[in-house]
């Protein structure tokens, strides 16, 4: 190896190192380290004021208390429902933007989808509250038109939470779908029709398989965001709707029980990862063949 060659290689290595440094630091400092801290914290058991012991007590508490795992399952179930709804509503929208809309209107439609994201979650939730409350806009309109006799309460139930969540996260479904569908050659669809397929078979055999990376990516993002959301379920939810993030907040803040809060946080992470793993297995996909591709 000549001297020149090795400096070039060193320079290359250095560039690579520098390029990766911010990413590595970010992952290490903001993701890995805090999580290690959480695991350590969650394995501490409080035996007396200022005295802690190592143990799995916080996890055992979780298993023994049906309220906790019921809330976790409920959060998981509702998040899945939100994901499915977001996919069902988002796919046609994304298909229209990517395939049917003209070049000029494409950008405009995309911006229209993005605009709600410029407003914070909190403000959007308050928007729903103003619309749906008993003395709100929808209720008064219904009464004026004569469709309802008295005030209608549309707030404070699970359906409202679902609607609010779908509204908040649907964009994260549409964006990856649009970008995958955009890359699809229109001739593939034409070929499908030419070979005698109807709209349904073309959709099922050509479009959806092609869009699979986008679908999987969108579903993962949406599911994670929903399961980890805090504001929307709290503000729109009713007197029976507990959300798991609320439990974590309560443990940390109201009950001063950081140890069990950390255990809950870790359990939420493990649970959502497990659901995604099961989802990938059931649909026969892998992360490398879908997300990495899109």
């Amino acid at each position: 190896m000549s001297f020149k060659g090795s400096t070039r290689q060193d320079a290359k290595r250095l560039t690579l190192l520098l390029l990766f440094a911010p990413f590595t630091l970010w992952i290490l400092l903001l993701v890995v380290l805090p999580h290690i801290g959480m695991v350590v914290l969650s394995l501490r058991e409080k035996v007396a004021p200022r005295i802690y012991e190592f143990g799995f007590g916080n996890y055992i508490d979780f298993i023994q208390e049906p309220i906790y795992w019921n809330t976790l399952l409920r959060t998981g179930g509702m998040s899945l429902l939100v994901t499915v709804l977001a996919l069902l509503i988002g796919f046609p929208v994304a298909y229209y933007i990517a395939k049917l809309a003209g070049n000029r209107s494409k950008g405009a439609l995309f911006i229209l989808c993005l605009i709600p994201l410029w407003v914070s979650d909190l403000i959007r939730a308050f928007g729903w509250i103003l619309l749906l409350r008993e003395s709100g806009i929808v209720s008064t309109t219904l009464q004026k038109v004569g469709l309802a006799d008295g005030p209608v309460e549309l707030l404070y139930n699970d359906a409202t939470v679902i609607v609010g969540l779908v509204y908040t996260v649907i964009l994260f479904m549409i964006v990856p779908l649009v970008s995958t569908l955009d890359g699809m050659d229109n001739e593939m669809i034409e070929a499908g029709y030419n070979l005698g397929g109807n709209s349904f078979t073309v959709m099922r055999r050509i479009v959806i398989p092609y869009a699979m990376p986008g679908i999987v990516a969108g579903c993962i993002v949406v599911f994670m965001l929903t399961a980890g959301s805090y504001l929307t379920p709290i503000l729109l939810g009713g007197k029976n709707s507990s959300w798991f993030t609320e439990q974590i907040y309560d443990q940390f803040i109201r009950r001063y029980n950081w140890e069990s809060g950390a255990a809950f946080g870790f359990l939420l992470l493990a649970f959502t990862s497990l659901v995604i793993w099961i989802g990938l297995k059931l649909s026969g996909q892998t992360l490398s063949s879908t997300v990495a591709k899109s």
Partner: protein
Amino acid sequence: MTMKTVLPTVLLGVGLTCSGASSAETLRLLTWGNYAPDNVIDMFEAANPDIDVEVTLSNNEEMIAKLRATGGSGFDLAQPSHDRIYAAQLEYELYKPLDLSKIDTSTMTPSLLTGVQENTTIDGEVYAVPHLWGTSGLMANKTEAPDLTGWGDLCDPKYKGKTSMRLTRTILLGTAFDMGEDPFAAYADLDEYQAILDKVADKLIACKENIKAYWQGGDDLSAMMLSGEIVASETWDSTAYKLYGENENIVFVPPATGALAWIDTFALPRKGKADEAAYKWINFVSQPEIVTLLSASSGAIAAVNGAMDLLPPDKKAAVNAAFTDDDVANLKFFANIPPGVEDMEGKTLEKIKAATGG
């Protein structure tokens, strides 16, 4: 400008800002919304030109969480309620003892001062003095719910779907009193307290049917009450006073078993760096003219002598509409929370929230 001239200029600028910052002391307050209004801060900074006041707004639970996360640093003066000092100090060592010689305690209401001191004395050291106090109780729209007198009336089927409460320890304690128990006395025997909590939980779960929604903060409670969506609710007195200003039919109702009284205090975080400035602030806000301003912004009553007379006119009218002398004598001050009780109460609240009924 070349690089050579830019650098010294920048350095000079940095030097100037640093020296500017070091001559002025910063007082970092950790307090409740409306407890340090801008007009009071301006007056304080005018009187003490060398002190800058920085305010962080919070509530009891978050104050303790913040101080716990930093081991008691990051703030110079905190204002937790009197029942949140003893256990927090024992468990997490968040505060440092007060030097009472630096505080003008002669103007403070003697009963509140001794009450707070008794509650917050550990190993002979006092950790807090009182600042503002107020109560939690009920609020009712007189035209729709004239007969509401006790905590339990929120569960009266007459008002089905038209009452609200906040799911916190206040409603647990209030309901316990309403059922003829004395939860504060039971703090001494946690098994007995658990038995009371279980009874309270059953009652509140059965009550869920009656509740429209659990409120989360003063704003959503106000909106529900003013729009007439609910006719009665558990509330902070200050929220009720505020609504009284907008609709005279909405009054604060001290429950028959006694309104629950809290005292927000002054306590020094363990690693606070501006104790002198903190003492100055404590003495400054205890002056009569400042007390009126604070009561106007917060709706709470100061723990100084003659505080009732120092209330601004609108708040005085609201308090008079709500409290008789008997009600004041009947106040139940929150007792010190022993270690472990928060966990028991937290579990009970979770049970109520998760129960499906109504």
